[in-house]
């Protein structure tokens, strides 16, 4: 087992009396792409800054490739960082920007020139070496920032919301490009973002953060399909959340949940605690049928279609449940007829399509 690229243990930073980030525990393996995902103020940027050395933690330890670093100043940590605003040096050319880290490491001029050239090829900036950052487009600036961070061959790459200043089309391109580059170089990467689509596209593992802590850490699929909390379920993708209580009466590894909209049998996902729970059902797992036509063994509730939104690949169908609350179902566009607004239907889902999470405390 090789040395992990990054190990954080019990990392804590306090701001005033009320705000605390941490304790954060996270291990990033060599070559792994880990995303810190969360809304603003969740502590993801503070965590990144602690790794980088711009914020000194109040407690805990950080190891970079086995090296104990939490007391080292930023310039000794040997990291590559890409910032949201690119942070290029406006008074220097693209080549000088990229070569800065090597220049600081007293690498020989000829070697710098060669490695800068390679780095520029890597990010497809050939021939732009003499330009100034001002003369580049947003995407090109981002590539310069990336090349500047990578050319020093850091043990860890930190990406601080690097895509949020780009327009949508470019952002989607850069996602794949950064991802491909990261895999090709096999460089361990910590990526900070509030954009779940970025997180899902690029990450090996995602750490969903909230209130200064990691609420769940896992692969995209685990986070999406088996969220640990109602917050994680709602932050990643769209979901139907139906509050209820776990009642006795479940059999054969099933739990019985009673909600205002009706009762349901759901798969026992290991939450044996009785009482309040939130049932989350992804819209693509919530199906519609004409009343009485739900398959055997599925949970079925009567509902009324309130709105149909055509989205091309699928339709988003909003329905009203018996208790008056709303739910959303995605119906794949398979060419057939769709549901009509005002139509009486039944919504159904199999026990394994629902996922129980604790109510947020």
């Amino acid at each position, binding site marked *: 087992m090789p040395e992990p690229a990054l190990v954080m243990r019990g990392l804590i930073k306090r701001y005033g009396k009320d705000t605390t980030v941490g304790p954060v525990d996270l291990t990033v393996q060599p070559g792994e792409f880990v995303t810190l995902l969360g809304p603003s103020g969740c502590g993801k940027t503070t965590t990144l800054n602690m790794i980088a050395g711009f914020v000194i933690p109040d407690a805990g330890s950080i190891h970079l490739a086995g090296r104990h670093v939490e007391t080292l100043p*930023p310039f000794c940590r040997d990291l590559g960082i890409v910032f949201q605003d690119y942070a290029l040096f406006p008074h220097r050319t693209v080549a000088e920007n990229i070569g*800065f880290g090597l220049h600081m490491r007293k690498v020989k001029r000829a070697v710098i020139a060669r490695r800068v050239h390679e780095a520029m090829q890597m990010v497809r900036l050939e021939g732009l070496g003499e330009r100034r950052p001002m003369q580049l487009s947003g995407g090109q600036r981002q590539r310069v920032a990336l090349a500047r961070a990578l050319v*020093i061959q850091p043990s860890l790459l930190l990406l601080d919301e690097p895509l949020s200043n780009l327009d949508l089309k470019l952002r989607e391109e850069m996602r794949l490009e950064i991802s491909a580059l990261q895999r090709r170089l096999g460089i361990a990467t910590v990526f900070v973002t509030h954009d779940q689509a970025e997180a899902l596209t690029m990450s090996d593992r995602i750490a969903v953060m909230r209130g200064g802590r990691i609420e769940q850490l896992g692969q995209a699929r685990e986070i999406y399909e088996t969220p640990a909390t109602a917050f994680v379920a709602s932050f990643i993708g769209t979901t139907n959340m139906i509050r209820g209580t776990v009642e006795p009466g479940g059999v054969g590894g099933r739990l019985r949940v009673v909600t205002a909209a009706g009762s349901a049998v759901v798969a026992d996902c290991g939450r044996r605690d009785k009482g309040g729970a939130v049932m989350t059902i992804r819209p693509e797992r919530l199906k519609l049928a004409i009343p009485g036509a739900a398959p055997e063994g599925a949970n079925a509730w009567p509902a009324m279609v309130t709105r149909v939104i055509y989205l091309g690949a699928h339709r988003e169908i909003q329905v009203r449940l018996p208790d008056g609350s709303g739910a959303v179902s995605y119906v794949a566009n398979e060419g057939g007829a769709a549901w009509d607004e005002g139509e009486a239907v039944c919504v159904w889902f199999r026990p394994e399509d629902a996922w129980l999470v604790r109510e947020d405390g």
Partner: protein
Amino acid sequence: MKRPHVIVLWCVVVLIYAFMLVPILITAAVSFNAAERSYFPPRGFSLHWWAMAVAPQWTAPFLFSLKLAAISAVATAIFGLPLALAMRRPAFRGRGVLQALTIGPLVLPSLVTGIALLQFLTLAGMGDWIGLPALIIGHIIICLPFMVRTLSVSLESIPLNAEVAAASLGAPRWRVLWEVTLPLARSGAGAGMIFAFISSFDDINLALFVARPGEVPLTVQIMQFIEYGFSPTLAALSILSLLVPLALVAVFGKLVGIGNFIYQDHGHA
């Protein structure tokens, strides 16, 4: 066919420039008078007054003023830079006080600064500082607010994380200052120095009090001369003292790129 408001705008612009430039042109014309007194339009043509203007009586104070202005400009930058850097730090406690102290001389007439400086030096037993050292100190005080201001503007235009990025790429603090902060503050320092140079060269209020007899700047010398009446020599001198600093400023501005400072935001990407 131009619209009326464009015509009005042009008239205003022409008038403003006329008010600024015509007196200078008249002065220039007067300096070529062949007559004994200042006539306009000049009577005859001679370089007599120009010859008078470059006599040692005038070149000594002229050179003294240039020396004083150059030293003041550089010294103001040396004092202004740490001030501007300190005021940029959000965690710096004395910021408010320092800001007030730096901006203070701006609202004080330089006459008052001159008197105060003279009194202070006399009372503190530093009478022999009167002359060039006192003039330099006084001009630093007068010019510092502008220097700090122009430097601050430059420093603010540095991309938010550029210094942090430099640190992460392996630059220790002094290296960040040298490689990133200072080069990007250059145009602000340049603008501040040009301003300091001109203010120092033009100053008479403060110089009246703290200049040493026999070693006076041009402004004071002109003032003393004018008590005995006007002569076309002064017209020639005026043109000289307009052109020489202008040329210096133009060359210097070219070197530090002051145009960038005034016209272009080179920061935020």
